[in-house]
């Protein structure tokens, strides 16, 4: 018998644990010619703001050992255009649409969440308080305990959709932040956003990306992400979406054993457009090979 892949992130039920990470999958349409979006547990779209944002000047990305640095600067079409032009496409598919949101002020987060609350076809809101590449908002909220609480609380009050807090790894200890997000009413946590990094071209002596610093992603950060998932899982009662350098199903299972109920595939989409569905199939194979009936049964089952 085939195992059940269904997982629950609080009130949000996914048919399988695999989601695409925000910022790595556009608005879904970009990858629809490579994979069947119906096969995904969920799709997290590129971060949305109240107004469209142009993003940072180029060069915006560079490759690093087993990873990449990016400072896109949250370029996006804005929440209204998303609802009008991008959401109807996604709504055709049998998958959960998670809208990633951010703002410069708490009021902006609130306003974006409120607009999405009324939109048909959005199943959850992921609150980005951890982008390292924008001056205001983003990580400024996610590296301060009180701001973390205030933003999540404001979004919680602005929407009846499930609320996921996406936390920053760029703090000494993520656990207190996870705890505050839980107390503010978050239903789940996304761990982790990119790690703040920098790379320099030694010939020109210039930083390799125009923003100087950027967010490091890819397999290079995976052990850091697994460690944070494990620490938060043990300390805080919220379900976790684990992410950070997942390239294949083995990596995804590693996150689930550390305590992630679901996983998000990010940078791997860039390298291999079919990575996300390959992870779904591979998790199923792992469960079969190990005689496990339900995907949630491996969550947190690391022998540590």
């Amino acid at each position, binding site marked *: 018998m085939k195992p059940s892949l269904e997982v629950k992130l609080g009130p949000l039920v996914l048919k399988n644990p695999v989601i695409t990470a925000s*910022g*790595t*999958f*556009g608005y879904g349409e*970009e*990858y629809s010619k*490579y994979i069947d979006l119906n096969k995904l547990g969920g799709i997290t779209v*590129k971060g949305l703001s109240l107004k469209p944002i*142009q*993003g940072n*000047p*180029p*060069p*915006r*990305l*560079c*490759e690093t*050992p*087993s*990873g*990449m640095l*990016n400072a*896109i600067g949250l*370029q996006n079409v804005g929440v209204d255009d998303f609802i009008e032009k991008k959401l109807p496409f996604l709504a055709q598919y049998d998958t959960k649409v998670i809208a990633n949101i951010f703002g410069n002020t708490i009021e902006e987060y609130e306003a974006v969440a409120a607009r999405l609350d009324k939109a048909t076809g959005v199943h959850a809101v992921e609150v980005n308080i951890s982008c390292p590449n924008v001056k205001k908002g983003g990580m400024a909220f996610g590296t301060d305990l009180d701001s973390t609480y205030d933003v999540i609380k404001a979004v919680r009050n602005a929407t009846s959709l499930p609320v996921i807090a996406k936390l920053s790894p760029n703090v000494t200890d993520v656990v207190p932040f996870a705890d505050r997000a839980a107390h503010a009413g978050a239903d789940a946590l996304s761990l982790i956003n990119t790690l703040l990094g920098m790379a320099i071209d030694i010939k020109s002596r210039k930083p390799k990306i125009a923003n100087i610093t950027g967010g490091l992603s*890819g*397999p290079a950060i995976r052990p850091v992400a697994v460690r944070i998932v494990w620490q938060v899982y043990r300390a805080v009662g919220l379900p976790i979406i684990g992410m950070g350098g997942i*390239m294949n199903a083995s990596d995804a299972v590693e996150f689930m054993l550390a305590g992630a109920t679901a996983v998000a595939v990010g*940078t791997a*989409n*860039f*390298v*291999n*457009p079919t990575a996300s569905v390959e992870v779904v199939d591979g998790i199923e194979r792992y469960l079969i090979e190990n005689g496990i009936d339900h995907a949630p049964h491996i969550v947190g089952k690391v022998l540590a």
Partner: protein
Amino acid sequence: MIAQIKRNEELFSGYFLVDIEAEGVGRGAMPGQFFMLKVGPSTDPLLRRPLSLHRKLTDNSVRFLYRQAGRGTSLLSRLIAGDEVDVLGPLGNGFPIPDSVSHALIVGGGIGVAPLMGLGDYIADERKDASAIAFIGGRGREYVLGIEQFKEKGIETFTATEDGSLPKKGFITQVLDEYILEHKDKDTGGWAIYSCGPKPMLVSVAALAKKHDIRNYTSMESNMACGVGACMGCVISVLDREHGSVMYKKVCDDGPVFDADDIVWSEI
């Protein structure tokens, strides 16, 4: 898709031609489009490498001209016939070749010839009603690539080298300017300039095109992660004529070919 290397040959120091074969790899591919290649399963280097289509050989076979520049292209350069490479594409918009184009002026500098050869092929083979002429420049004689191949397609080719090892000595843009001036009594309404090469050359070509009121399509490059429009990493500054402002456009799927007049060259 997995493709097989059929040949991978060094033309001269660091410049390679590679032919790959896979069912349908070239089907529908148009000049100016590109492919993303990944050599091996290693995560270092992590990302695919964008290579512009040099020539479509058949529906199942394409050729790339590339310069060994970093770790990705170094790994590629070591592959031999029979080895496999993971290929994604064709991607991007390709060169616009509307019916209104009756005379294509192909202008390439150095490795910039890579996407232009396929354009020459296309015009020679598919657009018998149009003509093409090529202007190829380089630092020295060996950097001036594709002269024989353009000639085989019946495309007249002008050259320029900075060191004078192949005439004319100087920049290819000077040769282009002289050619246009010689023909300025003709109706140039059906002319189009297609350019690819180093930025200073592209800027000069764009200025020449503007001066002579000839449209100019140029192929751009950028650091790229996904190649399919998702990562937003490869943007360049382009004029937004509708709003009279500057906007970012993606080289991968808004391009890689742009109207040179729309590009904000000072920000490239």
